């Protein structure tokens, strides 16, 4: 088993990275809010697996901690908080998208090409086993951006924000074998607190407008 892992680790990391990209596309196309959160949890799981693999290949022990952090925070805690929020807000309705799905997907494909080309010169310089994941990481960040832009409801926007963070962590493990532990803990705490605060915001937005559609916020003016 270990022998197999060391032989194919680079390919397995590539596979995990590709699955993260695939899940990013699935999130882009997903209308239902509960499925969206489950997809986010799956993306976190893939990220966790790929981090463990990078840790195994590079022998960096602190990456195991990073993987554990990802597992606890992004696979278990954040989805649980989001599920609870949704139950409390009673918003199990379909997520509507601003553009139609096919257009969004085509824009997504263009973004992937853009990201792969942008990263090409950088990944030539990177000497790590996982240099090809850098392009995928940038692509998933851009796709998460796109999701935040195209969605009008608050909860999917937050999921997009969290997915963006997934892409950044993937880039960090891919290019430089992870960030220092202090920074990683800091980011994790930031994300957790961010979600908690945004959860409070959800209630405020709904109380004010009877809906979670953030387009209502454009009407806010000091008069």
């Amino acid at each position, binding site marked *: 088993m270990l022998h197999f892992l060391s032989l194919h680790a680079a390919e397995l990391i590539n596979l995990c990275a*590709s699955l993260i990209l695939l899940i990013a596309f699935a999130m882009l196309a997903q209308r239902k809010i509960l499925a969206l959160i489950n997809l986010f949890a799956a993306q976190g799981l893939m990220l966790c697996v790929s981090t463990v693999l990078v840790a195994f290949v590079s022998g960096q022990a602190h990456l195991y901690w990073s993987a554990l952090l990802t597992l606890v925070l992004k696979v278990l805690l954040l989805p649980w908080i989001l599920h609870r929020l949704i139950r409390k807000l009673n918003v199990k309705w379909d997520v509507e998208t601003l553009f139609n799905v096919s257009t969004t997907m085509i824009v997504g494909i263009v973004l992937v090409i853009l990201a*792969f080309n942008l990263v090409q010169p950088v990944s030539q310089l990177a000497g790590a086993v996982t240099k090809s994941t850098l392009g995928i990481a940038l692509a998933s960040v851009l796709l998460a951006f796109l999701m935040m832009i195209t969605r009008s409801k608050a909860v999917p926007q937050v999921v997009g924000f969290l997915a963006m963070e997934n892409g950044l962590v993937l880039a960090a493990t891919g290019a430089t074998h992870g960030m220092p532990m202090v920074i990683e803990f800091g980011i994790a705490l930031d994300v957790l607190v961010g979600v908690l605060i945004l959860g409070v915001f959800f209630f405020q937005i709904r109380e004010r407008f009877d809906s979670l559609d953030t387009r209502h916020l454009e009407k806010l003016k000091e008069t």
Partner: protein
Amino acid sequence: MTSAAGLAAQFAELILAVLLAPMLTGWVNQCRAWLQNRSGPGVLQPYRMLLKLFRKEVVLAHNASPLFRIAPYVIFACLALSAAIVPTLSTDLPLNAAADAIALVGLLALARMFISLAGMDVGTAFGSLGARREMMVGFLAEPALLMVLFTASLISHSTSLATIVGTLAKNEFVIYPSLAFAGVAFTMVSLAENARIPVDNPATHLELTMIHEAMVLEYSGRHLAMIEWAASLKLFVYSCMGLALFVPFGIAEGGDSAGILLALPVLAAKLAVGGALLALIETLSAKMRIFRAPEFLGIAFLVAVLAMLVRVLLES
């Protein structure tokens, strides 16, 4: 060039496909029944169905043209031929020199064209409705299928299916991320092409949403038997294509007969697992509205494009 063993493998494959295809359909139905807590009709039910239909007399509409009568045989021939092209037992197939992956897609398109023409031939509302829907699904699914095949071709530098499968099976165990994407796209395309549940319901005669059943409503007797048999063959061809592209292990290299004998139980096991998975997908998903089908297939196409991109930009 064409060895005797190759010819034997070719004929064995063709006969096996034609004979086993209804059993695969029966197996899928049986698995669905089990998953839905029914006891199910057994895997041999499609054979009984075919036998019954062959014994019945053919009822033709007054205004049915000769095309209506020859269409079932053309469709069956197309699908039998494509079953012969897809390598299931051995990669040493004489027919592979004549037809590659693109020709295979062409053959499937020819079958689709004939079944649509036959559906419109009598001029009933249901027939034309089904034919139009079939063409809509077809023209969206075909580019996605081609993209999937092109991704596999990029890996093995050939569009010949035997070479593709040979390369994939012979290699040391290598993981291709692009094939993961291609696999997802292929699954979506085959669900649509085989009139399976998210796109069409194979077991309905009631809803206005049916596609495949709407086209063949006018058929009876041996014509209907041929069409049903061809539909089973189509499922068999798609399953074998998926197995050949994504889990090609255990197929016989070259023309040794021992390898073919070994490949047979492996193929049966893979088909059994694949059929059970198909039944699981069908049980877990609900049928989409027909207007969602373009979106579904658009996503399949884009995932297939993504597979090619990943192949070109990541793995080269």
